[in-house]
């Protein structure tokens, strides 16, 4: 009778029943192609348009400013490359941060090869981008600023409005990756002055394989997929009707209950953080203590390695994730934790716990109890002395790989 506890809700979330119920008819009953003009098509179209309206209402934009994609990765790639290539005549400079999701960073690197100039903003130790640094780098040929609303690893919520206002004053397009922030913080793109925003279905108890891009009217973007008239001709391909309907419902639900849900999550998260930090020595919280995602707790454990903790917890039925180099196939440690200046040994000893409303205090107690045992077991075989914790330095790895 092993207890199963899922604490990796920042990776993905289960589909909520309400969302599933809303999606079901679109698999078999309402099967028309939304692009068709007959009644079958019109019924499907109605579902898609309803989803568009729901998302627009949730983030405060017009329905026609929403474009559906296969996910936030696609949307982020599209924004960076699409806006850059469509605004080439205005300039060739892009500003982003070192904390971004790889879907932004890799797209920027690709643009660098094409001759664009990209500035990667640093972050302070809490994971905030500094406005003065942003102002310092903005220049007349800057065409795009992209900073994520809330970080997926350390959970720090950026001062989004301040960044958006800065971009607005300087007349630069501002994009934000709000995959984690939707449902955790109130976002109103019109009020905040956000020009472009991406979100994803599966982080909001919605279906996987669907995401959306909000792009303010009047911003030029190049086509992503050609060969279809869908989504204003910018992204061709038959729409994934059930997933889009599910996304619409999921966004609606999560923004509707945002205040009560985030309060509950915040209490659970703070309870967990307090328990861990007081009961296990040589631990620290990564990211800002207050201005962070309600469900995110990223903790660095001294002397031990994250993947080992993750696997040992997995044996006890507890699912978490880690920023350690070992856990990634590329054997690179978390770029976010490096960006906030964490020493190497703590980067590799960082574990992310992300909660959902279905987690209980009893579960948290159980996890803490197991965590204490696992950390003790691993510390007993650690070669790092207590006094050496946090002195891992930031030197390069020299091991043959």
């Amino acid at each position, binding site marked *: 009778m092993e207890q199963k506890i899922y604490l990796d809700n920042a990776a993905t979330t289960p589909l909520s029943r309400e969302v599933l119920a809303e999606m079901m008819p679109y698999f078999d009953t309402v099967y028309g192609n939304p692009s068709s003009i007959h009644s079958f098509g019109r019924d499907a179209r109605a579902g898609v348009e309803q989803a568009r309206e729901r998302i627009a209402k949730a983030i405060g934009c017009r329905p026609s400013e929403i474009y559906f994609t296969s996910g936030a990765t696609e949307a982020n790639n599209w924004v960076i490359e699409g806006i850059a290539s469509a605004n080439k005549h205005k300039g060739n400079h892009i500003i982003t941060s070192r904390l971004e999701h790889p879907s932004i960073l890799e797209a920027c690197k690709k643009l660098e090869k094409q001759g664009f100039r990209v500035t990667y903003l640093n972050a302070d130790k809490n994971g905030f981008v500094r406005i003065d640094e942003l102002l310092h780098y903005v220049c007349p040929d800057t065409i795009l600023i992209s900073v994520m609303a809330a970080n997926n690893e350390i959970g720090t919520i950026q001062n989004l409005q301040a960044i958006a206002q800065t971009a607005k004053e300087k007349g630069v397009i501002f994009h934000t990756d709000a995959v984690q922030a939707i449902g955790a913080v109130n976002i109103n793109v019109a009020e905040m002055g956000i020009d472009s925003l991406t979100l994803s279905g599966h982080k909001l108890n919605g279906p996987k394989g669907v995401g959306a891009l909000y792009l303010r009217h009047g911003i030029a973007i190049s086509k992503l997929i050609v060969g279809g008239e869908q989504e204003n001709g910018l992204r061709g391909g038959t729409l994934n009707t059930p997933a889009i309907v599910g996304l619409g419902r999921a966004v609606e639900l999560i923004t509707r209950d945002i205040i009560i849900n985030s309060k509950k999550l915040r209490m659970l998260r703070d309870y967990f953080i307090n328990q861990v930090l007081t009961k296990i020595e040589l631990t620290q919280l990564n990211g800002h203590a207050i201005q962070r995602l309600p469900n995110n707790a990223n903790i660095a454990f001294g*002397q*031990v*390695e994250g*993947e*080992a903790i993750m*696997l*040992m917890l997995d*044996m006890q039925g507890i699912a978490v994730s880690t920023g*350690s*180099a*070992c*856990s990634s*196939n*590329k*054997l690179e*440690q978390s770029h976010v934790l490096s960006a906030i200046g964490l*020493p*190497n*040994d703590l980067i*590799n000893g960082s574990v992310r716990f992300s909660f959902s409303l279905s987690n209980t205090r009893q579960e948290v107690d159980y996890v803490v109890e197991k965590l204490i045992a696992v950390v003790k077991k691993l510390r*007993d*075989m*650690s*070669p*790092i*002395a*207590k*006094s050496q914790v946090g002195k*891992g*330095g*930031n*030197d*390069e*790895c*020299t*091991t*043959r*790989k």
Partner: protein
Amino acid sequence: MYNEKVMKIFANPKNAGTLRGANGIGKVGNAACGDIMKIFLKIEDGIIVDAKFRTFGCAAAIVSSSVACELIKGMTVEQALGVTNRQICEEIGQLPSHKIHCSVLAEEGIAAAIKYYRRRMGLLEKKEKKQEAVKPRTLPAAKQEFDTKARDFSFTPVAETEKAEFAPAKQEESAPAAPVAKTSNFALELEAEEPLVVDLAYEAELLYAKQESYESKSSKATKTTTTTTTTTTKKINNE
């Protein structure tokens, strides 16, 4: 991603911990790689009677070090040096391809521990020294550079024999295996709360006798080497 055998060993690794009375200690890897491995060997009459490890790292690293310790127990020093990472991998079953370096680390850990042991013993029995089995990947240019540097400092006859030994040892610094100098220092820097691993008084005595001072001089001036070769200036008094 890991097979069942790996997970089974990982759940209950053998040979974890500090070995009391170890006379060979090797530390390899660094925090940037996510793996630090420390191997303790107890060698009696050229036979490894006990081996333990302390590893900071993922499951693959912990399992590799556990299996490596198990493998080399009862082997002679020479046999243990012959253990390759492939052997360790075979013992485990299979490691994911991006985790193979963990088994390499175990191989290097053993080599580093044995090297440490030999250096210590080498002082007492000079014959042992010739069996320097860990062959450094010497770059011809680097070696030459060392020799010229070495000539600048007048070496005593004793140092002349030492030089042959220490040239390769220092070359190793660019290689992943733990630098010998660091290893021996590490033994001294052991935490007070940790059980004493080696006879510290004995160790200190040895070090004092040798009066080694490794001063790394970066070879920026010479463009002959690509690796950061450090040269040593030392005065060795054999009392």
